[in-house]
């Protein structure tokens, strides 16, 4: 009987609340940015779409951006897709911060941006972020994960790889130079951090097969690994070509040094080193499907380099074959290295490349926008492989500035997650990386200010958290960043772990503490919590829920903490949109 009445009660309460919510009138202040976008959108609705889009600009006047916009728009026209509205300022600034500097924008920056009347404010933000130290940190993270994986293999120095990449992004080194250094690298894994890319592909003895596959995939955007065993079913890649490529990697030799630890009284791991084996045969042998054994000589897309490889270097050693390979890779007016980088960077910002998958270019897998890929590739080379310039082109394009909300028209036709070709009519969601999530939690909550830890302590804390999170997260390089691949342990870490616990603490200096002290009105406090975590104001239903929570909670601070907890744990927080 008691059960029954309890049962009735809950139904009644649920129903009553639903009515209360639907009946409540919108009273929360709309975000000025989204208001602006809405009125813009409303005005635009009256005009033909193509006309409106011609007017779109972030304030940048680069001619290549107009070319990008034309190409993308042509795709919309050809496929009878209408683009989504231009993103509101709140949505856009959160996105561009996450994509360029790897964390959500601090609340002050959002408020400043929303109030800024400058018509060129978006392009100015892009320029400013490219000079932000966060740019170097973020892209070092991205490329460390791409080169050695999220989980550091044994006997690989993550620090070494990061140091090499940090220097590259700090100086904005031309990308062809970076590739040259990585592919030809030799030496100590901390003194020359570039070696760690190849060391990470040498965890199992395999005659350099993984190194071959990964190098072509990451830096040339080609998947040759299947041809290890058979000719490619769909493109011109032959089995022989795989082994010709592999030939360049046959001098790879990893040396793991150990040293005596007097304290522990035993031998422990010291440094590792990538060395060159001398006297390696000029050909490799492989077995064809029909059982015949064949020989493959070093050759790059038909260009024979047997003679070059047979030379000695100035020290009397066999010449470094990978150096010969690297030079061939970066040679020419539009080498694959440039196209692969353009495509890769495009996919970093849009979730999908101009080919899908991003690292499988070739005649068997046509690009969605071939002319765009082509032109971006040659312009990238002309810019002397200027990575920052590439980011500028992408972020100032119209496609990067539309909202992530699909429209009725483009929802089905442009849904790459469901298998359609990416047309970039709306911005696709991306999952934050572990690093983006960590840094965003820090920025959104001033967590670094609430404790009294030093920079080193903070870095150690971050490393420990990331390691746990990555284990909980799992890694699979084949995954698209646009799908959610989180795990239960990861969700538990977010809900109950120390980081979020610290983040919602109300210690002196923390975000909550500051908000509560500086903002007198509850509506404003709620709005600022939403703004800092989601880049938008609460909708009426959410505002009402928040007010209700404050009313029923005996402890107001606890209510704010619970609210903040919910915001930071939400899908809207963890996705880049």
């Amino acid at each position, binding site marked *: 009987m008691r059960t029954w009445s309890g*049962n009735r009660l809950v139904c009644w309460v649920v129903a009553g609340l639903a009515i209360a*919510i639907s009946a409540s009138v919108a009273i929360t202040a709309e975000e000025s940015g989204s208001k602006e976008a809405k009125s813009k959108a409303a005005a635009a609705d009256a005009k033909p779409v193509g006309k409106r889009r011609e007017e779109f600009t972030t304030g940048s006047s680069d001619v290549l951006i107009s070319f990008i916009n034309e190409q993308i728009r042509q795709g919309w026209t050809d496929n009878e897709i209408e683009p989504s509205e231009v993103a509101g300022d709140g949505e856009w600034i959160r996105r561009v911060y996450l994509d360029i500097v790897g964390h959500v924008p601090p609340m002050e920056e959002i408020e400043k941006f929303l109030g800024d009347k400058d018509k060129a404010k978006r392009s100015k933000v892009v320029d400013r972020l490219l000079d932000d130290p966060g740019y170097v940190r973020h892209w070092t993270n991205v490329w460390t994960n791409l080169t050695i994986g999220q989980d550091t293999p044994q006997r690989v120095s993550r620090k070494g790889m990061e140091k090499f990449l940090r220097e590259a992004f700090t100086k904005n080194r031309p990308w062809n130079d970076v590739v040259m250094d990585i592919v030809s690298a030799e030496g100590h894994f901390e003194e020359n951090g570039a070696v760690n890319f190849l060391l990470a592909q040498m965890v199992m003895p395999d005659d350099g097969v993984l190194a071959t*596959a990964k190098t072509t995939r990451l830096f040339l955007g080609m998947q040759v690994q299947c041809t290890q065993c058979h000719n490619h079913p769909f493109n011109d890649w032959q089995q022989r070509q795989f082994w010709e490529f592999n030939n360049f990697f046959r001098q790879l030799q990893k040396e793991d040094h150990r040293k005596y630890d007097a304290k522990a009284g035993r031998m422990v791991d010291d440094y590792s080193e990538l060395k060159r084996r001398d006297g390696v045969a000029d050909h490799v042998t492989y077995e064809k499907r029909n059982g015949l054994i064949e020989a493959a000589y070093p050759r790059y897309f038909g260009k024979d380099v047997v003679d070059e490889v047979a030379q000695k270097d100035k020290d009397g050693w066999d010449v470094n074959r990978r150096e010969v390979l690297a030079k061939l890779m970066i040679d020419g007016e539009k080498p694959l290295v440039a196209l692969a980088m353009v495509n890769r960077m495009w996919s970093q910002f849009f979730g999908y490349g101009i080919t899908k998958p991003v690292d499988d270019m070739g005649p068997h897998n046509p690009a969605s926008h071939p002319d765009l890929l082509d032109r971006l590739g040659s312009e990238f080379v002309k810019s002397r492989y200027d990575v920052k310039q590439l980011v500028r082109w992408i972020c100032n394009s119209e496609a990067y500035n539309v909202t992530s909300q699909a429209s009725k028209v483009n929802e089905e036709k442009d849904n790459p997650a469901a298998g359609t070709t990416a047309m970039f009519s709306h911005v696709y969601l991306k*999952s934050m990386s572990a690093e983006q999530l960590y840094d965003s939690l820090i920025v959104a909550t001033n967590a670094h200010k609430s404790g009294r830890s030093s920079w080193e302590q903070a870095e150690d804390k971050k490393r420990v958290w990331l390691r746990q999170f990555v284990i909980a997260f799992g890694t699979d390089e084949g995954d698209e960043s646009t*799908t959610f691949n989180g795990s239960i*342990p990861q*969700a538990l870490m977010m*809900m109950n772990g120390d980081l979020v616990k610290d983040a919602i603490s109300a210690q002196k200096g923390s975000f909550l503490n500051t908000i509560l002290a500086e903002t007198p009105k509850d509506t404003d406090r709620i709005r600022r919590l939403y703004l800092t975590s989601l880049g938008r104001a609460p909708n009426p239903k959410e505002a009402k829920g928040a007010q209700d*929570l404050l009313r029923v909670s005996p402890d107001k601070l606890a209510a704010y903490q619970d609210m903040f907890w919910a915001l930071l744990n939400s899908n809207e927080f963890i996705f880049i949109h």
Partner: protein
Amino acid sequence: MSFVPAGMTRRHFMSHMAASAATIPAIQFMQHLQVHAETVKKNQKACILMWMGGGPPTIDIWDLKPGSKNGGEFKPITAAGTQISEHMPKTAAQFDVLNVVRSMSTREADHGRGRYFMHTGYVPTPTVVHPTFGSVVSHELGSKRKELEIPSFVSIGGDPGSPGFLGMSNAAFVVNTQGRIQNADMDGVDDNRRNHRLAMLGTIEDNFISSKRGEAPQAHKDVYKKAIQLMTSKQMEAFKIDKEDPKTIDRYTNAGAPTGGMMRAGGEFGRGLLMARRLVEAGVPFVEVGMGGWDLHANVFNTLKDRNLPSMDTAISALITDLKERSMIKDVVVVWMGEFGRTPRINQDVGRDHWAASWSVMIGGGNLKGGTHVGATDADGLTCETKPYLPGDIWATACYALGIPTTTVHTSKRGRPMKIANGGTPIPELIG
């Protein structure tokens, strides 16, 4: 006397509650739901993998060679219809449901490659990440067990590998033998506040889900739902072996008179197997339990007889006895393997090195036949004299026992069809 409103599924009810505003004191209802979810699931098929990290010397355990120069120090004893090491007497007494496959020939003698090959049935290639077999079982059986509130693949001190193209929802849930789950409690937050949090979270998530931003936001909510379910589930008790009778714990972990304090490490394996039994009882279809210390390049015989074998013998025999007593043995298939065997030749340090050409795996329980051996190596243990078996054949045999069709084909992320257990065949001598 169900507490869920009539005409409403539990799931629907839960989502209703999560979507409603923060003012509902929902905790008492949730507690009732938990009670109803707590149903002990017997007679469900499951697999327990005993993973011997480092590569066990199966020539000293399952396939002895008395009279050969490679034979080493141990003598065989009778175990049902076959013979195993004299240092496995308790297991020998339970061998009527177990079998040795003596003609494994697996090529891979590197730890990393062997681990991958034995766990997945596939040799490592740069093309694709193959799912470890626990993930395959999770994918096939876990999704069908709606009442299961804890993960369908648990690894206890094991080295399970990746779910590969089957995705993170089938990844191993890793715990240590203490069974402590990290971050499983909202410390210092009372039930009332927890419900406020979840209600608000529901509001924000639902708003985002309905905003035309693809499928990913719903996937996030689904994972959170599972995590919340786990936090509040009574089935979490399965991880707590201290709920067992101390006599039972003793049976799994006490390998007799300690010799030089070496028993502790072995006790861990026993605790792991006991937890595995509890998890299987709760409905978990695949549990991997790891035991390390097998990379015996030196001093192999002393290590085996003083440390590894007594504790392993105790743990395995306790598990089999327990499964028999609870009438679970006919539903639970057990597999014992490492990444490879060890050289028949004894090296100068009285050790054995890596050897993949001819070695043994133990398998039994479920609806498999028992008490015998399959295949044979020559008198010195150097080659397989009968048809060699691959890990895929072992896993295909496990599929048979689990009721998973061996015709099952998965599709990799690149759209390539992948046969379950790499197209292996159930071993005919073991199946009815």
